[in-house]
Protein backbone atom coordinates (compact mmCIF):
# COMPACT_ATOMS: atom_id res chain seq x y z
CA UNK A 1 0.00 0.00 0.00
CA UNK A 2 1.63 3.20 -1.17
CA UNK A 3 0.29 6.45 0.19
CA UNK A 4 1.03 9.15 -2.31
CA UNK A 5 0.61 12.88 -1.89
CA UNK A 6 0.55 14.96 -5.06
CA UNK A 7 1.20 18.68 -4.79
CA UNK A 8 -1.11 20.58 -7.11
CA UNK A 9 -1.46 24.23 -7.97
CA UNK A 10 -4.08 26.29 -9.70
CA UNK A 11 -2.54 28.57 -12.30
CA UNK A 12 -3.77 30.94 -15.00
CA UNK A 13 -4.51 29.07 -18.22
CA UNK A 14 -1.49 29.40 -20.50
CA UNK A 15 -3.97 29.94 -23.37
CA UNK A 16 -5.14 33.21 -21.81
CA UNK A 17 -3.22 36.44 -21.26
CA UNK A 18 -1.44 36.34 -17.90
CA UNK A 19 -0.59 39.45 -15.92
CA UNK A 20 0.28 40.82 -12.50
CA UNK A 21 -1.94 43.14 -10.50
CA UNK A 22 -1.17 46.87 -10.61
CA UNK A 23 -1.21 47.27 -6.85
CA UNK A 24 1.09 44.64 -5.35
CA UNK A 25 2.50 42.87 -8.43
CA UNK A 26 1.12 39.52 -7.37
CA UNK A 27 -0.63 37.28 -9.84
CA UNK A 28 -3.87 38.76 -11.19
CA UNK A 29 -6.04 35.70 -10.66
CA UNK A 30 -9.23 37.36 -11.90
CA UNK A 31 -7.91 38.31 -15.32
CA UNK A 32 -7.42 34.79 -16.64
CA UNK A 33 -9.14 31.42 -16.61
CA UNK A 34 -7.71 29.35 -13.79
CA UNK A 35 -6.80 25.72 -14.38
CA UNK A 36 -4.95 22.85 -12.74
CA UNK A 37 -1.33 23.31 -13.83
CA UNK A 38 -0.54 20.88 -16.62
CA UNK A 39 2.62 19.65 -14.92
CA UNK A 40 0.45 18.72 -11.94
CA UNK A 41 -1.86 16.73 -14.19
CA UNK A 42 1.24 14.72 -15.08
CA UNK A 43 2.13 14.36 -11.40
CA UNK A 44 -1.41 13.11 -10.66
CA UNK A 45 -1.21 10.75 -13.64
CA UNK A 46 2.05 9.28 -12.33
CA UNK A 47 0.53 8.77 -8.88
CA UNK A 48 -2.54 7.10 -10.38
CA UNK A 49 -0.34 4.75 -12.41
CA UNK A 50 1.49 3.68 -9.25
CA UNK A 51 -1.82 3.18 -7.47
CA UNK A 52 -3.30 1.21 -10.36
CA UNK A 53 -0.22 -1.02 -10.61
CA UNK A 54 -0.52 -2.06 -6.99
CA UNK A 55 -2.33 -0.70 -4.05
CA UNK A 56 -2.35 2.79 -2.78
CA UNK A 57 -4.15 5.97 -2.05
CA UNK A 58 -3.63 9.27 -3.80
CA UNK A 59 -4.13 12.50 -1.88
CA UNK A 60 -3.84 15.82 -3.64
CA UNK A 61 -2.61 18.77 -1.65
CA UNK A 62 -3.25 22.32 -2.76
CA UNK A 63 -2.33 25.66 -1.25
CA UNK A 64 -4.42 28.36 -2.86
CA UNK A 65 -7.46 30.59 -2.61
CA UNK A 66 -11.03 29.29 -2.37
CA UNK A 67 -11.47 29.07 -6.12
CA UNK A 68 -8.61 26.55 -6.24
CA UNK A 69 -11.33 24.00 -5.39
CA UNK A 70 -11.88 23.83 -9.17
CA UNK A 71 -8.31 22.59 -9.67
CA UNK A 72 -8.69 20.14 -6.80
CA UNK A 73 -11.90 18.77 -8.32
CA UNK A 74 -10.10 18.26 -11.61
CA UNK A 75 -7.45 16.12 -9.89
CA UNK A 76 -10.14 14.18 -8.04
CA UNK A 77 -12.10 13.64 -11.25
CA UNK A 78 -8.95 12.17 -12.84
CA UNK A 79 -9.01 9.57 -10.06
CA UNK A 80 -7.26 10.89 -6.94
CA UNK A 81 -8.94 9.66 -3.76
CA UNK A 82 -9.03 12.67 -1.49
CA UNK A 83 -7.72 16.18 -1.10
CA UNK A 84 -6.27 18.63 1.36
CA UNK A 85 -6.81 22.30 0.66
CA UNK A 86 -4.94 24.97 2.60
CA UNK A 87 -6.78 28.22 2.06
CA UNK A 88 -6.17 31.38 4.03
CA UNK A 89 -6.29 35.08 3.14
CA UNK A 90 -3.01 35.45 5.03
CA UNK A 91 -1.25 33.37 2.37
CA UNK A 92 -1.73 35.96 -0.39
CA UNK A 93 1.66 36.81 -1.88
CA UNK A 94 3.62 34.16 0.06
CA UNK A 95 7.07 33.41 -1.33
CA UNK A 96 8.17 29.89 -2.08
CA UNK A 97 9.86 29.39 1.30
CA UNK A 98 6.68 30.22 3.21
CA UNK A 99 4.60 28.20 0.74
CA UNK A 100 6.90 25.22 1.21
CA UNK A 101 6.61 25.47 4.99
CA UNK A 102 2.83 25.43 4.69
CA UNK A 103 2.94 22.44 2.36
CA UNK A 104 5.33 20.59 4.66
CA UNK A 105 3.10 21.27 7.66
CA UNK A 106 0.03 20.05 5.75
CA UNK A 107 1.84 16.86 4.72
CA UNK A 108 2.72 16.42 8.38
CA UNK A 109 -1.02 16.24 9.14
CA UNK A 110 -1.39 13.11 7.00
CA UNK A 111 -0.76 9.56 8.19
CA UNK A 112 2.16 7.56 6.81
CA UNK A 113 3.06 9.30 3.57
CA UNK A 114 5.30 7.11 1.38
CA UNK A 115 5.78 9.31 -1.62
CA UNK A 116 5.30 12.97 -2.43
CA UNK A 117 5.05 13.82 -6.13
CA UNK A 118 5.24 17.38 -7.44
CA UNK A 119 5.71 19.07 -10.77
CA UNK A 120 9.25 20.41 -11.22
CA UNK A 121 7.96 23.96 -11.57
CA UNK A 122 4.65 25.75 -11.87
CA UNK A 123 3.82 27.49 -15.14
CA UNK A 124 3.09 30.80 -13.38
CA UNK A 125 5.77 31.60 -10.78
CA UNK A 126 8.39 29.24 -12.23
CA UNK A 127 10.58 29.41 -9.11
CA UNK A 128 11.09 25.66 -9.42
CA UNK A 129 12.37 25.27 -5.86
CA UNK A 130 9.28 24.26 -3.88
CA UNK A 131 9.81 20.49 -4.25
CA UNK A 132 13.40 20.70 -2.95
CA UNK A 133 12.49 23.00 -0.07
CA UNK A 134 9.59 20.78 0.98
CA UNK A 135 11.88 17.72 0.90
CA UNK A 136 14.45 19.53 3.07
CA UNK A 137 11.81 20.60 5.57
CA UNK A 138 10.43 17.07 5.83
CA UNK A 139 13.86 15.45 5.84
CA UNK A 140 12.99 13.37 2.78
CA UNK A 141 15.34 12.34 -0.01
CA UNK A 142 14.65 14.52 -3.04
CA UNK A 143 14.64 13.06 -6.53
CA UNK A 144 13.93 16.03 -8.74
CA UNK A 145 13.38 16.52 -12.50
CA UNK A 146 12.31 12.94 -13.07
CA UNK A 147 11.25 11.93 -16.55
CA UNK A 148 10.79 8.33 -15.47
CA UNK A 149 9.61 7.03 -12.11
CA UNK A 150 9.24 3.53 -10.70
CA UNK A 151 8.34 2.31 -7.23
CA UNK A 152 9.74 -1.14 -6.42
CA UNK A 153 8.94 -2.38 -2.96
CA UNK A 154 10.25 0.21 -0.55
CA UNK A 155 12.48 2.00 -3.03
CA UNK A 156 11.82 4.61 -5.66
CA UNK A 157 13.92 4.91 -8.80
CA UNK A 158 13.93 7.85 -11.15
CA UNK A 159 15.71 8.99 -14.27
CA UNK A 160 16.63 12.59 -13.66
CA UNK A 161 17.07 14.82 -16.66
CA UNK A 162 18.30 18.39 -16.54
CA UNK A 163 19.38 20.67 -19.35
CA UNK A 164 23.12 20.13 -19.36
CA UNK A 165 23.96 17.17 -17.18
CA UNK A 166 22.48 14.32 -19.19
CA UNK A 167 20.49 11.64 -17.42
CA UNK A 168 21.20 10.61 -13.84
CA UNK A 169 19.73 7.44 -12.34
CA UNK A 170 18.66 8.05 -8.76
CA UNK A 171 17.33 5.67 -6.17
CA UNK A 172 16.07 6.27 -2.65
CA UNK A 173 14.22 4.51 0.12
CA UNK A 174 10.65 5.51 0.74
CA UNK A 175 9.41 7.85 2.02
CA UNK A 176 10.76 10.25 -0.57
CA UNK A 177 9.85 13.24 -2.70
CA UNK A 178 9.94 13.19 -6.48
CA UNK A 179 9.42 16.11 -8.84
CA UNK A 180 8.50 15.27 -12.42
CA UNK A 181 9.14 17.03 -15.72
CA UNK A 182 6.70 17.38 -18.58
CA UNK A 183 8.28 14.38 -20.31
CA UNK A 184 7.08 11.97 -17.63
CA UNK A 185 3.76 10.96 -19.23
CA UNK A 186 0.64 12.06 -21.07
CA UNK A 187 -2.03 12.73 -18.47
CA UNK A 188 -5.47 11.15 -18.90
CA UNK A 189 -8.63 13.16 -19.36
CA UNK A 190 -11.16 12.84 -16.60
CA UNK A 191 -14.35 11.00 -17.55
CA UNK A 192 -17.84 12.20 -16.75
CA UNK A 193 -18.06 9.28 -14.33
CA UNK A 194 -14.92 10.62 -12.64
CA UNK A 195 -16.49 14.07 -12.47
CA UNK A 196 -19.56 12.63 -10.73
CA UNK A 197 -17.41 10.58 -8.34
CA UNK A 198 -15.23 13.60 -7.47
CA UNK A 199 -18.20 15.29 -5.83
CA UNK A 200 -18.32 12.64 -3.14
CA UNK A 201 -14.61 12.50 -2.34
CA UNK A 202 -13.41 14.03 0.93
CA UNK A 203 -11.69 17.42 0.84
CA UNK A 204 -10.16 18.59 4.11
CA UNK A 205 -9.66 22.33 4.42
CA UNK A 206 -7.06 23.96 6.69
CA UNK A 207 -6.14 27.51 7.59
CA UNK A 208 -2.53 28.32 8.43
CA UNK A 209 -3.49 28.41 12.11
CA UNK A 210 -4.79 24.82 11.80
CA UNK A 211 -1.29 23.86 10.68
CA UNK A 212 0.32 25.57 13.65
CA UNK A 213 1.78 28.35 11.56
CA UNK A 214 1.52 31.99 12.58
CA UNK A 215 -0.07 34.23 9.98
CA UNK A 216 2.83 36.63 10.58
CA UNK A 217 5.22 34.12 9.02
CA UNK A 218 3.50 33.99 5.62
CA UNK A 219 2.05 36.36 3.05
CA UNK A 220 3.41 39.19 0.95
CA UNK A 221 4.64 41.39 3.81
CA UNK A 222 6.72 38.54 5.21
CA UNK A 223 8.12 37.35 1.91
CA UNK A 224 11.89 37.33 1.46
CA UNK A 225 11.47 38.83 -1.97
CA UNK A 226 8.86 41.00 -3.62
CA UNK A 227 8.28 42.06 -7.22
CA UNK A 228 8.96 45.80 -7.49
CA UNK A 229 7.87 46.28 -11.06
CA UNK A 230 7.01 44.23 -14.11
CA UNK A 231 7.06 44.94 -17.81
CA UNK A 232 5.93 42.82 -20.74
CA UNK A 233 8.47 40.83 -22.71
CA UNK A 234 9.97 42.92 -25.52
CA UNK A 235 8.68 41.86 -28.90
CA UNK A 236 10.72 39.16 -30.55
CA UNK A 237 13.56 40.36 -32.79
CA UNK A 238 13.66 39.12 -36.34
CA UNK A 239 15.90 36.07 -36.66
CA UNK A 240 19.21 36.05 -38.49
CA UNK A 241 18.78 35.22 -42.14
CA UNK A 242 21.21 32.95 -43.92
CA UNK A 243 21.21 33.23 -47.73
CA UNK A 244 22.26 30.01 -49.36
CA UNK A 245 24.84 30.90 -51.99
CA UNK A 246 26.34 27.42 -51.86
CA UNK A 247 27.79 27.98 -48.38
CA UNK A 248 24.44 27.88 -46.54
CA UNK A 249 25.14 24.66 -44.66
CA UNK A 250 28.49 25.86 -43.39
CA UNK A 251 27.06 29.21 -42.33
CA UNK A 252 24.26 27.54 -40.36
CA UNK A 253 26.76 25.21 -38.67
CA UNK A 254 28.98 28.18 -37.78
CA UNK A 255 25.97 30.04 -36.37
CA UNK A 256 24.99 27.06 -34.23
CA UNK A 257 28.57 26.68 -32.98
CA UNK A 258 28.63 30.42 -32.19
CA UNK A 259 25.46 29.99 -30.10
CA UNK A 260 27.00 26.93 -28.39
CA UNK A 261 24.07 24.86 -29.65
CA UNK A 262 26.24 22.18 -31.23
Amino acid at each position, binding site marked *: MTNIVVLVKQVPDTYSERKLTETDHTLDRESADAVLDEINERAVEEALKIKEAGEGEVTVLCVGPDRATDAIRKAL*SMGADKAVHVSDEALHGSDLVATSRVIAAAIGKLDSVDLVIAGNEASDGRGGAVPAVVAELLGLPQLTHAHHLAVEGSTVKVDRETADEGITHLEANLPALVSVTEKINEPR*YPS*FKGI*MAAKKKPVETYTVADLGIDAGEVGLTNAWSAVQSASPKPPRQAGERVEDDGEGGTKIAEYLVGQKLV
Partner: protein
Amino acid sequence: MPAERTLPNTEAEDLIALAREIAREELAPVAGEFEQAHRFPREQFRLLGKSGLLGLPYPERWGGGDVPYEVYLQALEEIASAWMSVGVGMSVHTMSCFALAYYGTEQQRDRWLPDMLSGQLLGAYALSEPHAGSDAAALTTRAEPDGEHYVVNGTKAWITHGGEADYYTTMVRTDPDGSKGISCLLVDAGTDGLSAAPPEQKMGMTASTTAQLVFSDARVERERLIGDEGSGLRIALDSLASGRLGIAACSVGLAQAALDEAVAYATQRTQFGTPIIDFQGIEFLLADMAAAVESSRATYLEAARRKDRGLPFGRQASIAKLVATDSAMKVTTDAVQVLGGAGYTRDFPVERYMREAKVPQIFEGTNQIQRMVIARELRRG
Protein backbone atom coordinates in the same frame (compact mmCIF):
# COMPACT_ATOMS: atom_id res chain seq x y z
CA MET B 1 -13.93 33.83 -26.87
CA PRO B 2 -15.52 30.78 -25.28
CA ALA B 3 -19.29 30.95 -24.97
CA GLU B 4 -20.49 32.25 -21.62
CA ARG B 5 -22.85 29.74 -20.11
CA THR B 6 -25.07 29.56 -17.08
CA LEU B 7 -24.98 25.98 -15.90
CA PRO B 8 -27.07 24.33 -13.18
CA ASN B 9 -24.26 22.87 -11.02
CA THR B 10 -20.53 22.20 -10.66
CA GLU B 11 -20.77 18.77 -12.36
CA ALA B 12 -22.17 20.52 -15.41
CA GLU B 13 -19.39 23.11 -15.23
CA ASP B 14 -16.76 20.39 -14.99
CA LEU B 15 -18.38 18.51 -17.86
CA ILE B 16 -18.28 21.59 -20.08
CA ALA B 17 -14.64 22.17 -19.03
CA LEU B 18 -13.85 18.58 -20.04
CA ALA B 19 -15.62 18.95 -23.41
CA ARG B 20 -13.74 22.20 -24.02
CA GLU B 21 -10.40 20.67 -23.11
CA ILE B 22 -10.90 17.72 -25.44
CA ALA B 23 -12.19 20.06 -28.15
CA ARG B 24 -9.23 22.39 -27.84
CA GLU B 25 -6.48 19.83 -27.46
CA GLU B 26 -7.63 16.77 -29.38
CA LEU B 27 -10.14 17.92 -31.99
CA ALA B 28 -9.42 21.46 -33.22
CA PRO B 29 -5.73 20.83 -34.01
CA VAL B 30 -6.45 17.95 -36.41
CA ALA B 31 -9.89 18.85 -37.81
CA GLY B 32 -8.65 20.65 -40.93
CA GLU B 33 -6.23 17.90 -41.81
CA PHE B 34 -8.78 15.09 -41.39
CA GLU B 35 -11.40 17.02 -43.37
CA GLN B 36 -8.99 17.54 -46.22
CA ALA B 37 -7.97 13.88 -46.21
CA HIS B 38 -11.60 12.65 -45.89
CA ARG B 39 -10.39 10.65 -42.89
CA PHE B 40 -12.95 9.27 -40.43
CA PRO B 41 -12.12 10.24 -36.81
CA ARG B 42 -12.72 6.84 -35.19
CA GLU B 43 -10.00 7.35 -32.54
CA GLN B 44 -11.51 10.67 -31.55
CA PHE B 45 -14.91 9.00 -31.08
CA ARG B 46 -13.19 6.39 -28.90
CA LEU B 47 -11.82 9.18 -26.70
CA LEU B 48 -15.26 10.79 -26.46
CA GLY B 49 -16.67 7.41 -25.47
CA LYS B 50 -14.00 6.81 -22.84
CA SER B 51 -14.67 10.26 -21.42
CA GLY B 52 -18.36 9.50 -21.07
CA LEU B 53 -19.51 11.94 -23.75
CA LEU B 54 -21.34 9.47 -25.99
CA GLY B 55 -24.17 8.58 -23.63
CA LEU B 56 -24.75 11.80 -21.72
CA PRO B 57 -28.56 12.11 -21.69
CA TYR B 58 -29.27 8.46 -20.83
CA PRO B 59 -29.73 6.62 -17.50
CA GLU B 60 -26.71 5.94 -15.32
CA ARG B 61 -27.95 2.38 -14.86
CA TRP B 62 -26.68 1.49 -18.34
CA GLY B 63 -23.60 3.66 -18.15
CA GLY B 64 -25.14 6.93 -19.29
CA GLY B 65 -24.40 10.31 -17.76
CA ASP B 66 -27.98 11.03 -16.67
CA VAL B 67 -27.56 14.70 -17.52
CA PRO B 68 -30.45 16.87 -18.69
CA TYR B 69 -30.63 17.88 -22.36
CA GLU B 70 -29.87 21.44 -21.32
CA VAL B 71 -26.40 20.28 -20.25
CA TYR B 72 -25.78 17.55 -22.85
CA LEU B 73 -26.48 19.97 -25.70
CA GLN B 74 -24.00 22.53 -24.40
CA ALA B 75 -21.27 19.89 -24.18
CA LEU B 76 -22.19 18.89 -27.72
CA GLU B 77 -21.99 22.51 -28.84
CA GLU B 78 -18.44 22.74 -27.45
CA ILE B 79 -17.38 19.65 -29.40
CA ALA B 80 -19.01 20.92 -32.62
CA SER B 81 -17.34 24.32 -32.25
CA ALA B 82 -13.99 22.55 -32.59
CA TRP B 83 -15.02 20.06 -35.27
CA MET B 84 -18.46 19.92 -36.86
CA SER B 85 -18.10 16.36 -38.20
CA VAL B 86 -17.37 15.05 -34.71
CA GLY B 87 -20.17 17.13 -33.17
CA VAL B 88 -22.69 15.83 -35.69
CA GLY B 89 -21.34 12.31 -35.17
CA MET B 90 -21.81 12.65 -31.41
CA SER B 91 -25.37 13.88 -32.01
CA VAL B 92 -26.16 11.06 -34.44
CA HIS B 93 -24.68 8.45 -32.12
CA THR B 94 -26.72 9.82 -29.23
CA MET B 95 -29.86 9.73 -31.39
CA SER B 96 -29.09 6.17 -32.48
CA CYS B 97 -29.31 5.08 -28.81
CA PHE B 98 -32.73 6.68 -28.37
CA ALA B 99 -34.88 3.84 -29.72
CA LEU B 100 -33.31 1.17 -27.51
CA ALA B 101 -33.13 3.43 -24.44
CA TYR B 102 -36.81 4.42 -24.59
CA TYR B 103 -38.55 1.58 -26.44
CA GLY B 104 -36.36 -1.46 -25.74
CA THR B 105 -37.23 -4.14 -23.20
CA GLU B 106 -35.26 -4.39 -19.99
CA GLN B 107 -33.48 -7.43 -21.38
CA GLN B 108 -32.57 -5.68 -24.65
CA ARG B 109 -31.26 -2.67 -22.80
CA ASP B 110 -29.14 -4.76 -20.44
CA ARG B 111 -27.68 -6.57 -23.41
CA TRP B 112 -26.78 -3.74 -25.79
CA LEU B 113 -27.16 -0.35 -24.21
CA PRO B 114 -24.00 -0.29 -22.01
CA ASP B 115 -21.69 -0.83 -25.00
CA MET B 116 -23.58 1.81 -26.98
CA LEU B 117 -23.59 4.45 -24.25
CA SER B 118 -19.91 3.89 -23.47
CA GLY B 119 -19.11 4.43 -27.14
CA GLN B 120 -17.52 0.97 -27.44
CA LEU B 121 -19.97 0.61 -30.29
CA LEU B 122 -20.46 3.57 -32.60
CA GLY B 123 -24.00 4.04 -33.84
CA ALA B 124 -25.88 5.25 -36.87
CA TYR B 125 -29.51 5.95 -37.65
CA ALA B 126 -31.06 4.61 -40.83
CA LEU B 127 -34.45 6.03 -41.83
CA SER B 128 -34.13 7.73 -45.26
CA GLU B 129 -34.17 5.86 -48.53
CA PRO B 130 -33.45 7.00 -52.08
CA HIS B 131 -37.18 7.57 -52.69
CA ALA B 132 -38.22 8.30 -49.11
CA GLY B 133 -36.51 11.46 -47.82
CA SER B 134 -38.89 14.05 -46.40
CA ASP B 135 -41.69 11.52 -47.00
CA ALA B 136 -40.14 9.01 -44.62
CA ALA B 137 -43.32 6.93 -44.31
CA ALA B 138 -42.90 5.95 -47.97
CA LEU B 139 -39.93 3.75 -47.10
CA THR B 140 -39.88 0.34 -48.79
CA THR B 141 -37.01 -1.62 -47.21
CA ARG B 142 -38.81 -4.87 -46.44
CA ALA B 143 -38.34 -7.12 -43.39
CA GLU B 144 -40.03 -10.53 -43.79
CA PRO B 145 -40.27 -12.82 -40.77
CA ASP B 146 -38.52 -16.17 -41.21
CA GLY B 147 -38.40 -18.26 -38.05
CA GLU B 148 -36.20 -16.49 -35.51
CA HIS B 149 -35.11 -13.91 -38.08
CA TYR B 150 -36.27 -11.12 -40.31
CA VAL B 151 -34.97 -11.25 -43.86
CA VAL B 152 -34.30 -7.66 -44.85
CA ASN B 153 -34.07 -6.31 -48.40
CA GLY B 154 -33.75 -2.71 -49.55
CA THR B 155 -31.52 0.35 -49.56
CA LYS B 156 -31.13 3.01 -46.89
CA ALA B 157 -29.70 6.38 -47.94
CA TRP B 158 -27.73 9.30 -46.48
CA ILE B 159 -26.53 7.27 -43.51
CA THR B 160 -24.10 9.25 -41.35
CA HIS B 161 -21.33 6.79 -40.26
CA GLY B 162 -22.51 4.39 -43.00
CA GLY B 163 -19.84 1.70 -43.30
CA GLU B 164 -18.08 2.93 -40.13
CA ALA B 165 -20.73 2.30 -37.47
CA ASP B 166 -20.99 -0.86 -35.37
CA TYR B 167 -24.79 -0.91 -35.40
CA TYR B 168 -27.63 0.75 -37.28
CA THR B 169 -30.92 1.77 -35.71
CA THR B 170 -32.90 0.93 -38.84
CA MET B 171 -36.52 1.56 -39.85
CA VAL B 172 -37.94 -1.19 -42.03
CA ARG B 173 -41.33 -2.13 -43.43
CA THR B 174 -42.91 -5.18 -41.80
CA ASP B 175 -46.36 -4.51 -43.26
CA PRO B 176 -47.48 -2.79 -46.49
CA ASP B 177 -49.87 -0.56 -44.53
CA GLY B 178 -48.22 2.89 -44.93
CA SER B 179 -47.09 4.61 -41.76
CA LYS B 180 -48.43 1.80 -39.55
CA GLY B 181 -46.31 -0.88 -41.19
CA ILE B 182 -42.92 0.41 -40.09
CA SER B 183 -40.77 -1.25 -37.43
CA CYS B 184 -37.42 -0.54 -35.81
CA LEU B 185 -34.51 -3.00 -35.88
CA LEU B 186 -31.20 -2.64 -34.07
CA VAL B 187 -28.98 -4.09 -36.79
CA ASP B 188 -25.44 -5.28 -36.10
CA ALA B 189 -23.04 -3.91 -38.70
CA GLY B 190 -21.55 -7.38 -39.11
CA THR B 191 -24.88 -8.87 -40.29
CA ASP B 192 -24.50 -11.10 -43.35
CA GLY B 193 -26.11 -9.51 -46.38
CA LEU B 194 -25.57 -5.95 -45.13
CA SER B 195 -23.03 -3.78 -46.92
CA ALA B 196 -22.26 -0.09 -47.31
CA ALA B 197 -21.98 1.57 -50.72
CA PRO B 198 -18.95 3.78 -51.47
CA PRO B 199 -19.23 7.03 -49.46
CA GLU B 200 -20.97 10.05 -50.99
CA GLN B 201 -18.71 12.81 -52.32
CA LYS B 202 -19.91 15.76 -50.29
CA MET B 203 -19.50 19.53 -50.28
CA GLY B 204 -18.45 19.58 -46.62
CA MET B 205 -18.15 17.46 -43.46
CA THR B 206 -15.84 15.32 -45.53
CA ALA B 207 -14.31 13.53 -42.53
CA SER B 208 -17.75 12.21 -41.66
CA THR B 209 -18.76 9.29 -43.83
CA THR B 210 -22.18 9.33 -45.47
CA ALA B 211 -23.18 6.26 -47.44
CA GLN B 212 -26.03 4.08 -48.59
CA LEU B 213 -26.64 0.81 -46.77
CA VAL B 214 -27.63 -2.12 -48.90
CA PHE B 215 -29.64 -4.97 -47.33
CA SER B 216 -29.59 -8.04 -49.52
CA ASP B 217 -31.33 -10.99 -47.82
CA ALA B 218 -29.76 -9.74 -44.60
CA ARG B 219 -30.83 -11.94 -41.69
CA VAL B 220 -31.53 -9.98 -38.50
CA GLU B 221 -32.55 -11.79 -35.30
CA ARG B 222 -36.14 -11.08 -34.27
CA GLU B 223 -34.91 -10.27 -30.78
CA ARG B 224 -33.42 -7.14 -32.35
CA LEU B 225 -36.89 -5.69 -32.96
CA ILE B 226 -37.17 -2.57 -30.78
CA GLY B 227 -40.71 -1.82 -29.64
CA ASP B 228 -43.71 -3.51 -31.27
CA GLU B 229 -44.04 -4.24 -34.96
CA GLY B 230 -45.69 -1.18 -36.50
CA SER B 231 -44.37 1.31 -33.96
CA GLY B 232 -41.30 2.21 -36.04
CA LEU B 233 -42.46 5.51 -37.44
CA ARG B 234 -43.40 6.81 -34.00
CA ILE B 235 -39.99 5.76 -32.67
CA ALA B 236 -38.29 7.40 -35.66
CA LEU B 237 -40.13 10.71 -35.28
CA ASP B 238 -39.61 10.69 -31.54
CA SER B 239 -35.86 10.14 -32.02
CA LEU B 240 -35.76 12.95 -34.56
CA ALA B 241 -37.42 15.48 -32.27
CA SER B 242 -34.53 15.02 -29.82
CA GLY B 243 -31.99 14.69 -32.62
CA ARG B 244 -33.02 18.08 -33.99
CA LEU B 245 -31.97 19.70 -30.75
CA GLY B 246 -28.56 18.10 -31.25
CA ILE B 247 -28.28 19.55 -34.74
CA ALA B 248 -29.33 22.96 -33.44
CA ALA B 249 -26.59 22.81 -30.78
CA CYS B 250 -23.97 21.70 -33.34
CA SER B 251 -24.94 24.56 -35.63
CA VAL B 252 -24.58 27.07 -32.82
CA GLY B 253 -21.11 25.66 -32.07
CA LEU B 254 -20.15 25.99 -35.72
CA ALA B 255 -21.43 29.57 -35.88
CA GLN B 256 -19.58 30.42 -32.66
CA ALA B 257 -16.35 29.11 -34.18
CA ALA B 258 -16.89 31.25 -37.29
CA LEU B 259 -17.65 34.32 -35.16
CA ASP B 260 -14.51 33.78 -33.04
CA GLU B 261 -12.39 33.47 -36.16
CA ALA B 262 -13.93 36.61 -37.69
CA VAL B 263 -13.45 38.68 -34.53
CA ALA B 264 -9.83 37.55 -34.18
CA TYR B 265 -9.12 38.44 -37.79
CA ALA B 266 -10.94 41.78 -37.71
CA THR B 267 -8.99 42.76 -34.58
CA GLN B 268 -5.57 42.21 -36.11
CA ARG B 269 -6.23 43.07 -39.76
CA THR B 270 -5.42 46.72 -40.46
CA GLN B 271 -6.63 48.78 -43.44
CA PHE B 272 -6.46 52.55 -43.89
CA GLY B 273 -4.29 52.50 -40.75
CA THR B 274 -7.04 51.08 -38.52
CA PRO B 275 -7.99 47.60 -37.35
CA ILE B 276 -10.99 46.73 -39.52
CA ILE B 277 -13.12 45.88 -36.47
CA ASP B 278 -13.25 49.65 -35.85
CA PHE B 279 -15.10 50.25 -39.12
CA GLN B 280 -18.83 50.32 -38.65
CA GLY B 281 -19.31 48.18 -41.74
CA ILE B 282 -17.44 45.36 -40.02
CA GLU B 283 -18.43 45.87 -36.40
CA PHE B 284 -22.13 45.84 -37.26
CA LEU B 285 -21.62 42.65 -39.24
CA LEU B 286 -19.87 41.08 -36.24
CA ALA B 287 -22.54 42.33 -33.85
CA ASP B 288 -25.27 40.77 -36.00
CA MET B 289 -23.31 37.52 -36.06
CA ALA B 290 -23.03 37.53 -32.25
CA ALA B 291 -26.75 38.26 -31.97
CA ALA B 292 -27.53 35.33 -34.27
CA VAL B 293 -25.29 32.95 -32.30
CA GLU B 294 -26.61 33.91 -28.89
CA SER B 295 -30.29 34.03 -29.85
CA SER B 296 -29.96 30.60 -31.50
CA ARG B 297 -28.36 29.24 -28.35
CA ALA B 298 -31.17 30.66 -26.22
CA THR B 299 -33.71 29.08 -28.57
CA TYR B 300 -32.33 25.54 -28.36
CA LEU B 301 -31.86 25.85 -24.59
CA GLU B 302 -35.50 26.84 -24.15
CA ALA B 303 -36.60 23.77 -26.13
CA ALA B 304 -34.22 21.59 -24.11
CA ARG B 305 -35.54 22.89 -20.80
CA ARG B 306 -39.09 22.06 -21.90
CA LYS B 307 -37.97 18.54 -22.78
CA ASP B 308 -36.16 18.18 -19.44
CA ARG B 309 -39.34 19.18 -17.60
CA GLY B 310 -41.43 16.67 -19.52
CA LEU B 311 -43.34 19.36 -21.43
CA PRO B 312 -44.17 19.02 -25.15
CA PHE B 313 -41.22 20.39 -27.10
CA GLY B 314 -41.71 19.32 -30.72
CA ARG B 315 -42.55 22.77 -32.05
CA GLN B 316 -39.75 24.37 -30.05
CA ALA B 317 -37.26 21.75 -31.28
CA SER B 318 -38.25 22.44 -34.88
CA ILE B 319 -37.97 26.18 -34.30
CA ALA B 320 -34.55 25.71 -32.70
CA LYS B 321 -33.33 23.57 -35.61
CA LEU B 322 -34.69 26.03 -38.17
CA VAL B 323 -33.34 29.14 -36.47
CA ALA B 324 -29.95 27.72 -35.48
CA THR B 325 -29.14 26.18 -38.85
CA ASP B 326 -30.25 29.22 -40.86
CA SER B 327 -28.22 31.41 -38.48
CA ALA B 328 -25.16 29.21 -38.89
CA MET B 329 -25.41 29.49 -42.67
CA LYS B 330 -25.60 33.28 -42.45
CA VAL B 331 -22.91 33.64 -39.77
CA THR B 332 -20.41 31.41 -41.56
CA THR B 333 -21.05 33.20 -44.86
CA ASP B 334 -20.51 36.56 -43.17
CA ALA B 335 -17.33 35.25 -41.52
CA VAL B 336 -15.93 34.60 -45.00
CA GLN B 337 -16.91 38.19 -45.88
CA VAL B 338 -15.07 39.60 -42.86
CA LEU B 339 -11.90 37.73 -43.80
CA GLY B 340 -12.22 38.88 -47.41
CA GLY B 341 -10.03 37.07 -49.92
CA ALA B 342 -8.27 35.26 -47.06
CA GLY B 343 -11.59 33.81 -45.98
CA TYR B 344 -12.12 32.28 -49.40
CA THR B 345 -8.84 30.35 -49.16
CA ARG B 346 -8.11 27.12 -47.34
CA ASP B 347 -5.47 28.94 -45.27
CA PHE B 348 -8.32 29.86 -42.92
CA PRO B 349 -11.08 27.56 -41.67
CA VAL B 350 -14.08 29.82 -42.39
CA GLU B 351 -14.67 28.62 -45.97
CA ARG B 352 -14.90 25.10 -44.52
CA TYR B 353 -17.32 26.30 -41.84
CA MET B 354 -19.46 27.83 -44.60
CA ARG B 355 -19.55 24.53 -46.50
CA GLU B 356 -20.30 22.63 -43.30
CA ALA B 357 -23.18 24.96 -42.40
CA LYS B 358 -25.18 24.05 -45.50
CA VAL B 359 -26.11 20.49 -44.67
CA PRO B 360 -27.71 21.12 -41.26
CA GLN B 361 -30.38 23.09 -43.16
CA ILE B 362 -31.09 19.84 -45.00
CA PHE B 363 -30.63 16.82 -42.74
CA GLU B 364 -32.74 15.55 -39.82
CA GLY B 365 -35.74 17.12 -41.52
CA THR B 366 -35.16 19.89 -44.06
CA ASN B 367 -35.94 23.36 -42.86
CA GLN B 368 -39.05 23.23 -45.07
CA ILE B 369 -40.20 20.17 -43.08
CA GLN B 370 -39.49 22.04 -39.83
CA ARG B 371 -41.81 24.80 -41.02
CA MET B 372 -44.49 22.18 -41.74
CA VAL B 373 -44.09 20.80 -38.20
CA ILE B 374 -44.35 24.30 -36.72
CA ALA B 375 -47.34 25.25 -38.90
CA ARG B 376 -49.16 21.99 -38.11
CA GLU B 377 -49.10 22.90 -34.44
CA LEU B 378 -50.29 26.42 -35.18
CA ARG B 379 -53.19 25.06 -37.21
CA ARG B 380 -54.16 22.74 -34.34
CA GLY B 381 -54.31 25.79 -32.08
